[in-house]
């Protein structure tokens, strides 16, 4: 049996939904409302790896009882084990590039985009909810790294100057992607791959969250790239998992930024 524990199809949650639709394979959807803390309330599958929450918040794939977590490595797992076209490039150097993008984008966009999204949409949503209940839910989150991601939405961390600094950090990864798209339509070799499935969910929300950084004048290739991927059937199908009218406004705290500065 194949079960996907997911919240609204955006950022980390959108990735496996696209990969499963690219294959395509049937699976059982286990939906939870992340902004309403349902992932802390229900009986969720848990083991050593998933309980460490390296990604802080994200999807879980449960395949015949085995828990697969981390949204990038989940894509490789889906590609390798399920029937259908491979999503990892066959050529070793292209596969290297796909994995190098996964590592780089996780550390960069994965720690930046969720902050901008949470500041714009999650923060006001939580502010409108029952404060005592929200604080109580957050206080119970383990491990501490995961809790800190939620606390930042509540404790005034997201000041205008903090958010400006976060937006500054967008510059380097966007430049790297824009440059890479000079060489072709896709990030890792001649075909659509896990690198593109990893990048798209973080990029497609940026025209809304950081319009000065991502727009047809500043980043024409990224804008075309977003449009190219958005037009795929798999993306349309993945978005049909949405239960709100605006899944692109549903954010969770993302990967922790480097503690080195």
């Amino acid at each position, binding site marked *: 049996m194949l079960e996907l524990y997911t919240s609204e199809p955006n950022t980390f949650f959108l990735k496996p939904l696209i990969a499963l639709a690219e294959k395509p394979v049937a699976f059982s959807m286990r939906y939870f409302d992340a902004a309403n803390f349902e992932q802390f309330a229900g009986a969720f599958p848990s083991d050593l790896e998933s309980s460490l929450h390296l990604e802080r918040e994200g999807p879980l794939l449960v395949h015949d009882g085995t828990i697969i*977590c*981390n949204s990038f490595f989940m894509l490789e797992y889906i590609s390798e084990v399920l029937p259908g076209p491979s999503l990892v490039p066959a050529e070793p150097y292209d596969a290297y590039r796909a994995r190098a993008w996964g590592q780089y984008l996780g550390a960069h966009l994965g720690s930046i985009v969720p902050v901008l999204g949470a500041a714009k949409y999650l923060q006001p949503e939580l502010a409108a909810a029952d404060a005592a209940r929200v604080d109580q839910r957050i206080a119970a989150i383990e491990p501490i790294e995961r809790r800190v991601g939620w606390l930042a939405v509540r404790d005034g961390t997201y000041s205008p100057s903090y958010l400006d600094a976060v937006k500054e950090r967008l510059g380097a990864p966007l430049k790297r992607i824009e440059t890479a798209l000079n060489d072709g339509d896709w990030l890792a070799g001649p075909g659509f791959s896990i690198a593109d499935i990893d990048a798209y969910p973080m990029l497609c929300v940026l025209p809304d969250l950081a319009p000065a950084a991502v727009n047809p004048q500043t980043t024409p290739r990224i804008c075309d790239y977003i449009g190219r991927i958005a037009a795929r059937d798999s993306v349309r199908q993945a978005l049909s998992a949405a239960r709100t009218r605006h899944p692109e406004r549903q954010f969770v705290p993302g990967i922790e930024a480097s*503690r*080195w500065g």
Partner: protein
Amino acid sequence: MSVILYHWEPNANSGKPMLTLAEKGVAYESRYLDLLQFDQHKPEYLAVNPDGTIPAMVHGSRVLTESTPMMEYIDDAFEGPPLKPRGAEARWRMRWWMRFFDAYFAPSLSMIGWSIFVGPAARQRPQEELKAAIERIPLESRRIAWRKAIFNEFSPAELAESKRRVTFATHALEQHLSRSPWIAGDTYSLGDINGFNLGYALPLSQPENCNDSKTPHIMEWLRRIYERPAARETWAKGRTQMASRIKILERTPGA
């Protein structure tokens, strides 16, 4: 096609491709860069890797600069014993633990290491020279890291948090290795190569966290890797005291 590897000591990121190439039996041309002389920020090397990070591998016309995906490339592109397990679940587990090492364990351990080793070693040199060297670092994030290390700017809170994480991560690793002999399960893999480069000196640098009574599975796992010919060969390439720390893993006769 020839393989050229730009690396520092067999340690952390540099040691990952070194040990992987040795395990595969791939001959390579070694270009040693002295991290403490900032060789990695000199123009000759920036022409290879404009980010100025080490290691970098050049295979024919291909340049690889991310050490963990580089290990997978070495396994994919060369003959020799496979270093990834056969099953998709085991491969997923290998990759998950490599990310845990790279993104969680290593940054905390290296912050401590830089504060007690890299920083003081670099500070032997004139301050003006150091400032100029820092200015030449291409990546902003690396400039910040070097500035902190060289001028001893890690705050007590940052170091305390790193120590907490190292203790926590060591405990998680011990738990994992009590379930299976190797990182990916039943077979030695890139996950073990990655973890060994991170952890070979833990019994020396973190004796209160990592020792035969508290972490017997980690100790046994480290010794098993240390006894592999490829590890012997790789650590023999070390030029500083750093690499010789590996001798802590020698089994005591009769113990």
